């Protein structure tokens, strides 16, 4: 009994596999190329090997490795069996996918409990766990769309989206150039820079600070994105209008954060600079700006996401015939959902890279901050 308690996922996987075997065949009568019994047998054997290793083997690394291989090899075999039989899958197919998914879950549970000794192994496990999760989101998505035969215009399978990305690289690259390298970067630099300069100004003139800060805080909560159509009317269809939206959206977070950051230096440190008879600019550059860096980078990170959103949404209101927002809105109109998803995947990648670059710069600049040095 205690053996069964070791992994409820494995027990459930065995039950699902047995249920699948009872309710064969896997595919309906309309299947054009039904798979041979050999494929089915291998999948079932893989599932059972995985499940029983989780119940019987006591070494964690071994269990995790066996589960990892069996779950993913099984899924891969099932997908190859699905080829040409889209929309014809019956209950056993989904039961087997579910069983394999439970094995992957058991694998993640094992990995989470691992305490690797070396640093590299710990990093590998830390990356592997979310990677397995992400992979299974795609596997279940693929299985559902192709197994049930969900219409392409509702939800294309990930494989089709991947193929679309591979086939449309020039178009995607042109969109990225228009939206990110023109509108986003220009607007981000100008908007953040302006917010920073005004924050310094507000710091020098106390009256300005007390007037601007509440307004800045208020505006940060507003749906500024709504300004997009007006900017399109003012600055035309090309990237300048999108950059204008990005400037307005990134200005306020930078203003508010920098003003807050400039008050972050401690009293003792300020007194210290005073005992050195340090002037305003010396204190600003040697003490207050370095101390404000974590706040400034916080704004830069918020802004990296805001800038992308601003530029893409602004393109919904009109663009020349290129740009990520343009592509998304026109391809939706033509119901080319795979292209829309491809563009979204690129946007997600661009957003992560942008954010990652800012985060790396933050690590290099504020290496001394407790949150980064981990103390």
């Amino acid at each position, binding site marked *: 009994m205690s053996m069964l308690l070791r992994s409820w996922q494995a027990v459930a996987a065995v039950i699902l596999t047995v249920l699948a075997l009872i309710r064969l065949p896997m595919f309906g009568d309309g299947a054009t190329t039904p798979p041979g019994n050999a494929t089915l047998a291998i999948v079932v054997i893989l599932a059972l090997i995985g499940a029983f290793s989780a119940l019987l083997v006591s070494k964690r690394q071994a269990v995790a490795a066996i589960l990892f291989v069996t779950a993913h090899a099984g899924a891969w075999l099932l997908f190859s069996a699905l080829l040409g039989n889209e929309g014809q899958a019956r209950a056993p197919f989904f039961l087997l996918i579910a069983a394999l998914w439970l094995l992957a879950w058991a694998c993640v549970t094992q990995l989470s409990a691992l305490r690797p000794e070396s640093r590299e192994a710990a990093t590998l496990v830390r990356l592997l766990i979310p990677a397995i999760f992400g992979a299974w989101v795609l596997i279940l998505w693929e299985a559902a769309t192709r197994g049930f035969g969900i219409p392409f215009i509702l939800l294309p399978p990930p494989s089709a989206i991947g193929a679309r990305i591979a086939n449309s690289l020039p178009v995607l690259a042109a969109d990225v150039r228009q939206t990110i390298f023109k509108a986003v970067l220009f607007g981000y630099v100008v908007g953040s820079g302006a917010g920073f300069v005004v924050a310094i100004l507000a710091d020098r003139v106390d009256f300005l600070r007390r007037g601007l800060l509440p307004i800045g805080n208020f505006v940060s909560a507003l749906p500024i994105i709504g300004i997009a159509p007006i900017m399109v009317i003012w600055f035309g269809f090309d990237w300048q209008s999108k950059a204008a939206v990005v400037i307005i959206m990134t200005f306020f977070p930078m203003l508010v954060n920098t003003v807050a950051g400039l008050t972050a230096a*401690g009293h*003792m440190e300020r007194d210290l600079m005073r*005992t*050195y008879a*340090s002037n305003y600019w*010396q204190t600003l550059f*040697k003490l207050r700006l370095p101390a404000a860096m974590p706040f400034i980078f916080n704004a830069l990170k918020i802004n990296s996401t805001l800038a992308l959103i601003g530029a893409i949404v602004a393109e919904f209101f009109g663009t020349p015939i290129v740009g990520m927002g343009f592509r998304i809105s026109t391809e939706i109109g033509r119901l080319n959902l795979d292209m829309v998803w491809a563009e979204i995947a690129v946007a997600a990648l661009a957003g992560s890279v942008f954010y990652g670059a800012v985060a790396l710069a933050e690590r290099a600049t*504020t290496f001394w901050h407790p949150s980064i040095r981990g103390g």
Partner: protein
Amino acid sequence: MNTVIQADKLNLTFQTNDGPVHALSDIDLAIEKGEFVSLIGPSGCGKTTLLRVIADLEKPTGGTITVNGMTPEEARLKRAYGYVFQAAALFPWRTIADNIALPLEVMGLSGDERRKRISDNLELVDLAGFGKKYPWQLSGGMQQRASIARALAVQPDMLLMDEPFGALDEIVRDHLNEQLLKLWAATQKTVVFVTHSIPEAVFLSTRIVVMSPRPGRVHDVIDCDLGSERPLDIRETPEFLKIAHRVREGLRAGHAYDE
């Protein structure tokens, strides 16, 4: 003799939400060149406030005070003193060497001069070889030594120290007290030292100013000459204990009328 700090009828009243607080009341005090003067008293007696007035970090509301014959502000602008805070207050984004360079950069000294002073002062506080470390990589005692080196790098006539070892444990504190004494003997600087520890005050000082709270006043001034050679063991000698007893009496008397 040569008076460096002269306070006459010094008063300071803070305006707070609960009404005025009389932090300093009619303080008369003269400190001579080369002295080691400790200000001791319970919290709220104004000892730190007095030190901050000398450093021009607070402005008095009455009376006069001169530092090196000038107003405290003029003295501050001429960088007449080095100030050591309760905490090391080292900038975490600068290495130890760069932290010591900080006041020198503010003063506009050349790179060569800065490098020389950094290595000299690191040596002086026994931190040679730690210049490239960051503050958070050092122990609390080492950090406070670095902050003393930073204060000395300005080459001031005076050191103003505000409970510099208050946050450290007893053993480290003893060790730093010994080192400070050696430093003082070697450099001949005037030191004004705020503390709430009786043994520390007696061990280090040539004169002890006992203060009492509400309003902050000077209660007693005790001469304390234990000779220039002072090993830690001296704290068990009768002379030491006698002075310590007098300081304790002073503190107790200052406390008496509000309990």
